[in-house]
């Protein structure tokens, strides 16, 4: 549906690409990256708002690399929504059909369906779109984009102005709409959670390059490089030394702690590497229950430094290794904290499966501390 081949562009001294990716029809694709990674520039190339310096863009089988924006038949939901302030809600939604001089019978069907689906009936008569609430504006902008029945919808951080709770419910209802209508989504965001919620497949862009592309699970299981790992995780990443290999496992030492890891196929050991463990991958063992049969290694003795309550979840910061040389962040549940009466200072045992330990070389290029 969307195929990008070796696309490159530049603005000032910033260079984008060459970047390639492909998005199948009817799926939801997320481009994730930090501010300044070039995501919006990439999107503007796809939309025809910026002229790429090289490469090809194919939409729905048609090469549109040099087509103007109005020749691409795609819809676009920008971050600021850009509802036209001089038009009423109804005229905003019908802007596309009126520009294209569509007869009423052509737009009435999709219009009525969207009004019902997005509960827009009470808003239609509003003269000034600036009086709408944040969520209402989102729905009007969505209807305006979808009334032309596009095959692809490009979204540029469309939820970032909403607060956390409203954002979640809109994300889910838009995803339902996408699945019902068989739309192709291309969403750009810097928000990790949003990426994981919305993506059938995703790509991480760092410094103008696509560093990894695949299903969301691949990113938690196995970041493609240390750079991607650092972008996904600030805690629990440590330099480590290779110790030995046995039974398909590598044993690495970090701060006096030896951790077993199952390396990705094709990676060969080097003396100096990095390991990473997601807070979610660490389990606190309960002394009242027997060890599960697979827990033959990676039993880490530690001490609780601090318990962080984030309201909807908790983290324990646990120091392990010689003189607590390594500080691990561990996701814990309210029940666990209650049942074990976990407090700061308690001694606990952690476990992590070898296949959940990331192993990376230090990249060749000079990376900052993320």
């Amino acid at each position, binding site marked *: 549906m969307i195929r990008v081949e070796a696309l490159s562009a530049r603005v000032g001294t910033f260079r984008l690409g060459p970047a390639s990716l492909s998005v199948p029809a009817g799926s939801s694709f997320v481009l994730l990256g930090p501010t300044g990674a070039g995501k919006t520039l990439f999107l503007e190339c796809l939309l025809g708002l910026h002229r790429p310096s090289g490469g090809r863009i194919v939409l729905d089988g048609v090469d549109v690399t040099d087509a*103007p*924006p109005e020749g*691409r038949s795609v819809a676009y939901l920008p971050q600021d929504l*850009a509802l036209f302030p*001089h038009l009423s809600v109804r005229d905003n939604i019908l802007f596309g059909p009126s*520009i294209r001089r569509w007869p009423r019978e052509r737009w009435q069907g999709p219009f009525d369906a969207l009004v019902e689906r997005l509960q827009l009936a009470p808003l239609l008569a509003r003269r000034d779109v600036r009086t709408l609430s944040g969520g209402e504006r989102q729905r009007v902008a969505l209807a305006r984009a979808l009334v032309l029945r596009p095959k692809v919808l490009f979204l540029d951080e469309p939820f970032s102005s909403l607060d956390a709770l409203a954002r979640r419910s809109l994300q889910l209802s838009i995803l339902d709409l996408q699945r019902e209508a068989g739309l192709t989504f291309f969403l750009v965001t810097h928000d990790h959670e949003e990426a994981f919620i919305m993506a059938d497949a995703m790509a991480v862009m760092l410094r103008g390059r696509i560093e990894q592309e695949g299903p969301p699970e691949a990113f938690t299981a196995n970041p493609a490089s240390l750079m991607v790992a650092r972008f996904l995780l600030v805690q629990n990443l440590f330099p480590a030394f290779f110790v030995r290999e046995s039974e398909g496992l590598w044993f690495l030492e970090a701060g006096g702690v030896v951790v077993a890891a199952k390396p990705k196929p094709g990676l060969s050991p080097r003396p100096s590497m990095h390991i990473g463990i997601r807070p979610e991958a660490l389990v606190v063992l309960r002394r009242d229950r027997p060890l599960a049969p697979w827990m033959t290694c990676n039993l880490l003795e530690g001490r609780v430094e601090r318990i962080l309550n984030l309201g909807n979840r908790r983290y324990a910061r646990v120091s392990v290794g010689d003189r607590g040389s390594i500080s691990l962040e561990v996701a814990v549940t309210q029940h666990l904290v209650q049942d074990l009466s976990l407090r700061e200072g308690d001694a606990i045992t952690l476990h992590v499966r070898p296949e959940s330990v990331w192993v990376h070389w230090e990249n060749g290029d000079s990376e900052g501390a993320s």
Partner: protein
Amino acid sequence: MDGGQTLKRGLFRALLVAATGLAVTVMAGLLLSQVAYAGLEKPLASLLRPEVFHALFLSCILATAAAVIALALAIPSAYLLARRAFPGRILVDTLLDLPVVLSPLAVGFSLLLFFRTAPGSFIETHLMRFVFEPAGIVLAQAILAYAVAVRVLKTAFEEVEPRYEQVARLMGCTPFMAFRKVTLPMARPGVVAAAVLGWGRAVGDFGATVMVGGAVAGKTETVPVAIYLRLASVDIAQAVGLMLVLTAAALAVLLLVRLTGRAP
């Protein structure tokens, strides 16, 4: 906090208020002086005389023509300057601003000189006469009005986020349609302000008008020129009457611009 600080704070506020009060007094004094010297009755009565009426009529016609011409050129060039990057843009931008800071007298004199050069006198003799003609006044005033209008319009177009046009393009608009259906209506207060301020600049001009048009009674005698001529012939009541009209026009301009939501 000690008393010294309280005193200093009071002094600062007093200074701000005093400076503003003095300025307001001067401006209000200007307005009141117009009435104080000759009263209202005689000056207003003088406006009914046919030669005065003719000056008013001429001023209106010429300033309106100048404003229309200025706007017709200023809209596309302001849009170009606001939206498109091209080599030499800063040079063009500076050149178009020139008449704002150039003395109107110098603008008029330059035009006068132009019509004495070879291409200028060709236009004069074969196409249309400008020097000491109403057409010349329109040209001079249009240049002054254009400079004001292009500045206001450029700001107005820049204030419309390009995002709106981009969204319109993705819904099927050509660049021209995106301009006409989105940017122009969104910048409407700016367009009105540009027209009104340009007209105000044209109608009040003396320097450029008197240079290009001369002071030919009944032919190139706009209101400012008429004031000057009346004053020279010591007909103060009529001069005051005409000035009241100019002042009323200026106040109307300010009011209109404020009503359309864009301070000049």
